């Protein structure tokens, strides 16, 4: 019995029990459903073992959307709790867990996953490749991410969620002050999914460098691919820092070291230092692909080439380097001397310059264009002013002296939501709508989509603009409640109202998906948006091999110039195509990793050892395995191409 006691949630409440039941029922329903429709074989063969970048991308995005609703529910709970003074909807401890999981889920398991999902689906198509450089590694990346996400989410019902904030500062996160296993979960969930992300980073850099279609020089790549390349470079160099920080945290919590304690020479703020050396570049990992998405969309729906292509690329390269130079602005207030704070203040504000260049380039892309207000374009157009507000408040936060007043307040919360939601979330929604026809062969309903857009963006404004004001009025972040005399009440109520409007917007998006599955026409052709880059040159739905004939590219708007200037994209004849084989190993390895990490969280050493041996066995099996993939014969390709109307 004692063995099982550790799995109990430390602060149970009816809400948690209700969610336990809900989660249990959902899992049962899914299992029952799959069994009833006899889909296990299909699921295993076509999805769980797939190495196809398109399917992996779609799985990433589905998981990310699930996480969006998990994190969104957290958000609404927080806004509800703080909507009136002295509210008792959530207790302090529960509120702390809710905002911690909200942050982690939204950043790591939602935004990152969606961005990586989009890269997976789009990048190989945009560069005319058949798959990524290491397809099986790609599958492993996804399943490791998924294992990390699952591990993090079961913390809610088994053993307790982390409660030290998503920044997880020590010593608050140490055993002394965070007594449940929550922070162990945090360490391992981020560790596992971080490993997956690092592999993605390497994979996509090699893909983009080595697998571009003939003729596609680096400076002829579509902007989204460029942003993916730079993002992955940041991933590769930022994530190892997190790995070390998490290892140190694990050592402190589970092996009794004193690396982040305030005794025996440990230094609590070193966690903060390492966390932000990773954490600040992480912000750019999220936002750069979003910039890429907007670049594609604005260019497409203005009917024009992207203005200032070279300066767009250059500014991203500069951002990628500078993102590693500013991290100490997250703790201006820890007591550095004015000289140190000044240095980081200047580097922080300097990042605004390359970002500003991009804003003006997008504006100039619309200049003399022919702007069509589709749903993706609406999000992009709303992004420009909203993100500018978020960006300039960032510059304000970069003023070190003023940061002493903004730090840890709702002003800061307003700022980073103001960059992340119009920046990343709008890009996700825009990108999803934009590439949806390529993924599924039909379009999302434009009219319903526009309704959703208005709800989401107006809801956003009501939700977060009031926070700037309450922040300046002295409301600290992460307070589960406040007294009436503070006067924060009305503005927080407005925020809650905004959150509700946003939530309705997201429900409309779900409704739109269901509605469009049922009602949208399927005969939309390969290029429903009249777009410009290569992914629209292949047939919809995209076949396993992407392009029957590898395209040859002459300009940065390859497909557009094919349409307008008649450049020939597909030369030569269909030849047999080499494709990688599916493999069950990635999902098995991720499953083993899940067992390993779960056992580690609860100090079940037998489980740790068994899982470690099993994992190594998988590696050895892989080392000795001979798998050269397979060829798709010409006859089969021709048959598929003819059936679907042919590529060229």
């Amino acid at each position: 019995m004692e063995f099982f006691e550790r799995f109990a949630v430390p602060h149970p409440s009816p809400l948690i029990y209700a969610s336990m039941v809900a989660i249990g029922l959902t899992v049962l329903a899914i299992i029952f459903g799959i069994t009833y429709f006899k889909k296990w074989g299909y699921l295993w063969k076509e999805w769980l073992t797939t190495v196809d970048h398109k399917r992996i991308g779609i799985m990433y995005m589905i998981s990310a959307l699930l996480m969006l609703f998990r994190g969104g529910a957290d958000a609404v709970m927080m806004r509800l709790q703080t909507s009136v003074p002295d509210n008792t909807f959530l207790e302090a401890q529960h509120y702390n867990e809710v905002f911690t999981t909200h942050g982690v889920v939204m950043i790591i398991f939602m935004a990152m996953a969606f961005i990586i999902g989009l890269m997976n689906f789009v990048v190989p198509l945009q560069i005319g490749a058949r798959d990524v450089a290491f397809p099986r590694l790609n599958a492993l990346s996804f399943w490791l991410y998924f294992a990390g996400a699952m591990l993090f989410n079961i913390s809610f019902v088994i053993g307790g969620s982390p409660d030290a904030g998503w920044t997880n500062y020590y010593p608050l996160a140490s055993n002394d002050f965070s007594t449940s296993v929550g922070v162990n979960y945090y360490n391992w969930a981020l560790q596992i999914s971080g490993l997956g992300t690092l592999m993605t980073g390497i994979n996509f850099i090699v893909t983009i460098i080595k697998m571009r279609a003939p003729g596609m020089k680096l400076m002829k790549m579509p902007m989204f691919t460029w942003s993916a390349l730079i993002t992955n470079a940041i991933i590769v160099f930022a994530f190892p820092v997190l790995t070390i920080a998490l290892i140190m945290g694990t050592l402190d919590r589970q092996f009794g070291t004193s690396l982040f304690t305030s005794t025996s020479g440990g230094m609590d703020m070193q966690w903060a230092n390492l966390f932000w050396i990773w954490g600040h570049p992480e912000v750019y990992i999220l936002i750069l692909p979003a910039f890429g998405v907007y670049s594609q969309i604005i260019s497409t729906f203005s009917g024009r080439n992207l203005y200032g292509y070279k300066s767009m690329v250059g500014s991203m390269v500069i951002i990628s380097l500078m993102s590693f130079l500013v991290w100490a602005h997250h703790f201006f207030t820890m007591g550095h001397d004015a000289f140190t704070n000044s240095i980081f203040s200047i580097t922080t504000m300097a990042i605004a310059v390359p970002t500003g260049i991009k804003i003006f380039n997008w504006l100039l892309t619309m200049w003399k264009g022919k702007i069509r207000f589709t749903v993706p374009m609406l999000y992009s157009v709303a992004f420009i002013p909203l993100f500018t507000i978020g960006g300039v408040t960032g510059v304000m936060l970069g003023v070190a002296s003023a940061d002493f007043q903004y730090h840890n307040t709702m002003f800061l919360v307003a700022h980073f939501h103001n960059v992340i939601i119009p920046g990343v979330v709008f890009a996700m929604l825009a990108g999803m709508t934009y590439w949806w026809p390529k993924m599924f062969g039909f379009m999302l309903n434009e009219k319903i989509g526009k309704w959703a857009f208005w709800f989401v963006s107006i809801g956003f404004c009501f939700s977060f603009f009031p926070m700037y004001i309450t922040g300046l009025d002295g409301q600290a972040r992460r307070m589960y409640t406040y007294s009436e005399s503070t006067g924060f009440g009305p503005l927080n109520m407005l925020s809650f109202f905004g959150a509700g409007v946003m939530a309705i917007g997201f429900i409309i998006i779900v409704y739109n998906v269901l509605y469009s599955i049922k009602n949208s026409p399927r005969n939309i052709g390969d290029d429903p948006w009249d777009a410009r880059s290569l992914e629209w040159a292949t047939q919809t739905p995209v076949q396993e091999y992407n392009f029957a004939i590898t395209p040859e590219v002459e300009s940065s708007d390859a497909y557009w110039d094919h349409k307008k200037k008649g450049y020939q994209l597909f030369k030569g004849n269909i030849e047999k195509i080499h494709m990688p084989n599916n493999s069950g190993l990635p999902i098995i390895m991720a499953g083993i990793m899940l067992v390993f990490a779960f056992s580690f969280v609860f100090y079940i050493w037998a489980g740790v050892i068994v899982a470690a041996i099993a994992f190594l066995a998988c590696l050895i099996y892989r080392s000795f395995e001979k798998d050269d993939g397979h060829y798709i014969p010409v006859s089969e390709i021709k048959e598929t191409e003819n059936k679907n109307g042919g590529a060229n």
Partner: protein
Amino acid sequence: MKIDNTQPLEYSTDQNQMNILGFWIFLGAEIMLFATLFATYFIYADRTGSGPTGSDIFEITPVLIETFLLLTSSFTIGLAINAMRLGRKNATLTFLAITLLLGAGFIGFEIFEFVHYYHVGAGLQTSAFTGMLLTTLGTHGAHVTFGFFWGLFILIQIKRDGFNPRTANKSFIFSLYWHFLDVMWIFIFSFIYLKGMM
């Protein structure tokens, strides 16, 4: 698989070239991993709490032996790749085996060193300094141990299958990994041991 015969075997297919480039980028990530360890170690170097300081516990002899073993193994793995490019299977296997033996020797001495630290009261939990020292050395040591088994399996595969694009590619990537561990050791040797004993 298209094989390009004008290239050395390890570069001969597109996939091989991508593997090598991918591994180089992975080494870039490893540089950051060790840089983080070094940064933290440097910050903690004087934060010894009530435990011993670096100069109290470091001993020059085992460190010198470890350095020599790893430097030499880095040389022999280079020779192994040279022999592989000449197509000399037995010479390759010999050099690879020597490399692994030297690596095993290194691991042995490192274990000996850790036991010594434990005996003089410098355990993982003693202070922030000892904790970080052992974490840094341990990370490097774990890399070498992983490399030892990786090399062993490659040795078995070369012995069984001879040289082909697959085994040649694996051997070359392994050699990159091994050289990299040597480079990292040079930094550990210079900036942890020698600087600590200066």
